[in-house]
């Protein structure tokens, strides 16, 4: 809770800093605030997890680990933001403030124990992003992204709310323990309202995590938003949504899995194929990453499909691997777009020669996304496939393996462009700024560390 309060106050402090035009202080203050919040989260680790504030929030190891991941990712992304926002407009303080508020929402979503908090958390997280997606006000794509995200977000929230209402109608409570008690107490006489509620919650959450067939907003929104905001959306928001998804289905709906397993199975298969095949078709790196993020949502849903003791750690490891690689991928794109003016694959030609460090870290990120051994992505995929294996979803595994191979193909394409194609005439090599170097090296080291010694993360749960 202390972390949430810290972040709320940090947002307001940032607004005041903006008011007094102390622009130099913005980034350091934000980072210090994030560190303090991180400290509070780590301090809570040893404490006994009980629902607080009339059962509204619970800070168990699940919530804390996902919150720590969200805070660290935000810190990494904000490190890249130096000189990024000031190129867009003069109101930088508000951007930092909105990101921090959005992070507050993500922490609430990670730790909810009552649907009221889930709803408010998701809304805080998304409302800030509707605006951030549209901060390039003169850019039509940015406007489109913002509007589309807003309309689809409002629509999916409608599904979520209706689901919550139906569940309340069946059980008379918003509290997760109460709902769980209802499922346990009445195994035979579960109200049809409850089933309809599960369906609506499933649809609402699939919208939020961007799983097909509810994914159609993802490519346009990710493509149109400023790259830094896309990075935030595709990492922190996705991680938090998955935490909410897993908590709800693991804690409350697990006993009713006969009902929702076929639906989720269909969603996963469609997501994998739509995501991977569309990603294969793209010529733009940004759009490719957007579709690949849809595909990764499909892999992460494996953990929810086959709930078990390893679900939480599996989804966490996968989220770490995917987020770190995404940060590097989008970070590289920021640099390439800035200096070469294009986000097509061709713009990456010759990077291997002109910027060896950049090329190596990006290669590592792509290999991790593809799931090559010795990277974190491999461990994530391995854990996901093992959980699905335990439930004997053999067909699903075969389809997923086919998809993983398609994935390798389009991730390797970037590497081919960087190392085996020479740059066009007239492109000047650029120097990597120090903050980018720092973030990329940290992400690369973490990717390798998790890949070689995954026990450090799995042991957390």
């Amino acid at each position: 809770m202390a972390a949430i309060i810290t972040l709320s106050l940090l947002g307001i402090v940032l607004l005041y800093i903006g008011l007094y035009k102390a622009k130099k202080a913005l980034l350091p203050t934000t980072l210090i605030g994030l560190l303090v919040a991180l400290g509070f989260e780590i301090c809570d680790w040893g404490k006994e997890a009980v629902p607080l504030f009339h059962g509204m929030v619970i800070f168990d190891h699940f919530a804390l680990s996902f919150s720590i991941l969200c805070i660290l990712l935000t810190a990494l992304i904000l490190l890249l933001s130096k000189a990024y926002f000031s190129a867009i407009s003069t109101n930088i303080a508000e951007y930092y403030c909105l990101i921090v508020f959005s992070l507050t929402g993500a922490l609430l979503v990670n730790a909810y124990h009552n649907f009221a908090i889930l709803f408010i958390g998701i809304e805080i997280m998304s409302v800030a992003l509707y605006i951030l997606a549209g901060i390039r006000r003169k850019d039509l794509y940015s406007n489109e992204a913002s509007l589309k995200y807003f309309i689809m977000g409002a629509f999916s929230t409608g599904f979520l709310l209706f689901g919550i209402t139906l569940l309340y109608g069946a059980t008379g409570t918003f509290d997760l323990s109460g709902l769980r008690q209802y499922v346990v107490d009445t195994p035979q006489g579960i109200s049809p309202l409850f089933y309809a509620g599960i369906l609506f919650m499933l649809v609402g959450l699939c919208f939020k995590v961007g799983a097909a067939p509810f994914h159609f907003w993802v490519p346009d929104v990710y493509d149109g938003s400023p790259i830094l905001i896309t990075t935030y959306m595709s990492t922190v928001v996705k991680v938090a949504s998955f935490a909410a998804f897993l908590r709800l289905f693991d804690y409350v709906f697990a006993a009713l899995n006969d009902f929702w397993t076929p639906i989720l199975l269909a969603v996963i298969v469609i997501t994998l194929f739509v995501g991977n095949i569309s990603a294969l078709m793209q010529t733009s790196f940004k759009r490719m990453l957007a579709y690949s993020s849809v595909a990764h949502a499909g892999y992460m849903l494996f953990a929810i499909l086959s709930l078990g003791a390893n679900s939480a750690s599996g989804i966490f490891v996968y989220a770490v691997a995917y987020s770190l690689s995404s940060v590097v991928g989008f970070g590289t794109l920021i640099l390439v777009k800035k200096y070469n003016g294009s986000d097509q694959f061709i713009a990456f030609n010759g990077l291997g020669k002109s910027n060896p460090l950049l090329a190596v870290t990006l290669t590592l990120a792509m290999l991790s996304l593809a799931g090559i051994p010795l990277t974190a992505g491999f461990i994530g995929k391995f854990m996901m496939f093992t959980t699905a294996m335990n439930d004997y979803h053999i067909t699903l595994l075969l389809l997923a393996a086919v998809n993983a191979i398609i994935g390798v193909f389009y991730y390797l394409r970037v590497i081919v462009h960087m190392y085996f194609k020479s740059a066009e005439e007239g492109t000047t090599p650029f120097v990597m700024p120090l903050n980018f170097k720092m973030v990329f090296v940290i992400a690369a080291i973490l990717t390798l560390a998790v890949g070689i010694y995954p026990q450090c993360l799995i042991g957390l749960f």
Partner: protein
Amino acid sequence: MTIFYFVAFLSIFFALMTIFTKNPVHSVLYLVITFFTFTIHYILLNAQFLAVVNFIVYMGAIMVLFLFVLMLLNLNKDTEPMKSNLVKIMGTIAGMCLIATVLGALKVIETNNGFVTGNTDFGLVKNLGKILFDEFLLPFELSSILLLTAMVGAILLAKKDKKEA
């Protein structure tokens, strides 16, 4: 009970009118009437707070906003995007499936269920306040962050940039 059926009939009638009128301004006006019938429903259910909020926020603020936007947009037949029949048919089928799901869930519900008949004083402002400031205090406080975010964002998007001026 007769009042209920009469008001329910009016709600459905005006809701259908909202969809079927060609003129967007008329459509919005029918929507206002639909919301007004909802307000009557809330009063019949003894839910004062919901009735007042519905009346002020939905009927007042949001509908006026709708009307303004419509008048500014200058909608007519030329600017209206044509939808293909396929999309219409798909939309109808999907909508009907949704109705079937929800009605199926609602049909079997037992009307003597405690949550349905419920406590008739539940919607009174006094009881609502007691719950809001006791059990639901944390979400109530947190919604302030939501409102602040929305305010900051609205100003950020609407304010003129100095560079451009």
